[in-house]
């Protein structure tokens, strides 16, 4: 294999590893909300346990990327591919941490009946999950138009987050009893909102990868 051929192969491997960590994070996210909806403590525990796999994969990606920089001294698009891989791995690792946070909150809610309809939280979660999936697809296909779509979806998430917080505020005025669950629900909504922000980061990284300049899709 030529030097360039080996480098191209390594870049492909790097991309493959990112898709791997990405799909693990997607699974963690969707299982965390399933566990929350079904109050399934075992499933929530599973999400927490499997997080170490994602942490390890993130480290592996970073080590591999650093080695590539050291050995190949990349420039231009090659360098952006590697830097963006490091950044995306960081965002995905955070996203997986939010899934863990949701799982922990689920365990603390336990068997208690919900104090409010959770439909908006689930809807918000589904959008955030879709954003993560599209972010990974945009990365894989280097699709800037798709990246832009993600930032539109983030506006929906922010809107729903505002509604949920207002609902919870109303609820605390009327219902003094289950304050701790309300607090946990607001935290879960917050985790999902942050997940969507990190998915928007993925989109920004994709635009940077393709265009070579920074754009603020959150703006």
């Amino acid at each position: 294999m030529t030097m360039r051929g080996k480098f191209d192969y390594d870049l492909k491997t790097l991309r493959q590893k990112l898709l791997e960590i990405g799909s693990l994070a997607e699974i963690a996210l969707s299982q965390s909300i399933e566990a929350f909806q079904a109050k399934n403590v075992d499933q929530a525990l599973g999400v927490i346990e499997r997080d170490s796999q994602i942490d390890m994969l993130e480290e592996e990606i970073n080590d591999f990327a650093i080695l590539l920089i050291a050995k190949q001294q990349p420039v231009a698009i090659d360098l952006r591919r590697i830097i963006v891989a490091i950044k995306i791995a960081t965002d995905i690792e955070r996203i997986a941490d939010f899934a863990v946070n949701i799982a922990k909150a689920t365990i603390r809610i336990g068997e208690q009946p919900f104090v409010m309809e959770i439909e908006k939280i689930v809807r918000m979660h589904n959008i955030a999950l879709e954003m993560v999936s599209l972010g990974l697809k945009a990365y894989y296909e280097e699709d800037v138009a798709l990246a832009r779509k993600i930032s539109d979806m983030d506006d929906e998430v922010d809107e729903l987050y505002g509604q949920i917080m207002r609902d919870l505020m109303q609820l605390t005025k009327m219902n003094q009893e289950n304050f701790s669950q309300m607090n946990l629900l607001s935290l879960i909504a917050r985790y999902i909102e942050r997940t969507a922000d990190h998915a928007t980061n993925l989109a920004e990284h994709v635009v940077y990868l393709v265009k070579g300049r920074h754009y603020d899709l959150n703006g």
Partner: protein
Amino acid sequence: MELTIVKKQNAAAPKVQKEKDVVYRTNELNLWYGEHHALKNVNLDIYENEVTAIIGPSGCGKSTYIKTLNRMIELVPNVRTSGEITYRGRNIFDKSYRVEELRTQVGMVFQKPNPFPKSIYDNVAYGPRIHGIRDKKILDEIVEKSLRGAALWDEVKDRLHENAYGLSGGQQQRLCIARCLAIEPDVILMDEPTSALDPISTLKVEELIQELKENYSIIIVTHNMQQAARISDKTAFFLNGEVVEYAETDQLFSTPSDKRTEDYITGRFG
């Protein structure tokens, strides 16, 4: 879907920079070696107190171009040129422009160190002596100043009268730079000045280039792209006798605008 993206505001205020003077202006330069068209419609402005790197694969015309700047190219038989190169506003191809006059302003350092088989002192004093300086005190001053300027003084001050061939390759190259500085040029041309040096000597010459640009304008041909990226302010990419891209080095090595530049700097050909 129409893609409209809001560009992020750059946090740093735009740098206010003094307009730099153009040292060399190349206008529609063509050059032929016999039938071979070696430089094609080259247009290039080279600025004062900057390091301008010239990169490109072998045979792309980069060495031809740099040798045109001090008219060394005239030594090659059957060379023809059209277009013009002005140095400080004056056409260097003009009949009235004496080549010696041009080369007093424009020094050159070559790929292989080429000291004269003389003492270190005499190597540096050679140019000034040719220009008629005989006063020992003045020559001493020039030699010290030039050797200091080439970051070599401390290493050789106790053996100035030893033969230059006793120096290491890296030291010899810095001696050649000192020899060049002794005639107080305006521009220094460097044709792959570190390709025969080990990494440490290379680094020393690179550091020296950074210091020298405070007082000189430097044009360097290099095969080492990382070197161009490290030390130059602007980079010109030559291919098949044409300037494919000429831009700020930071831009050329991060977001080149021409696909051929991108392919070259990322090692896809060349």
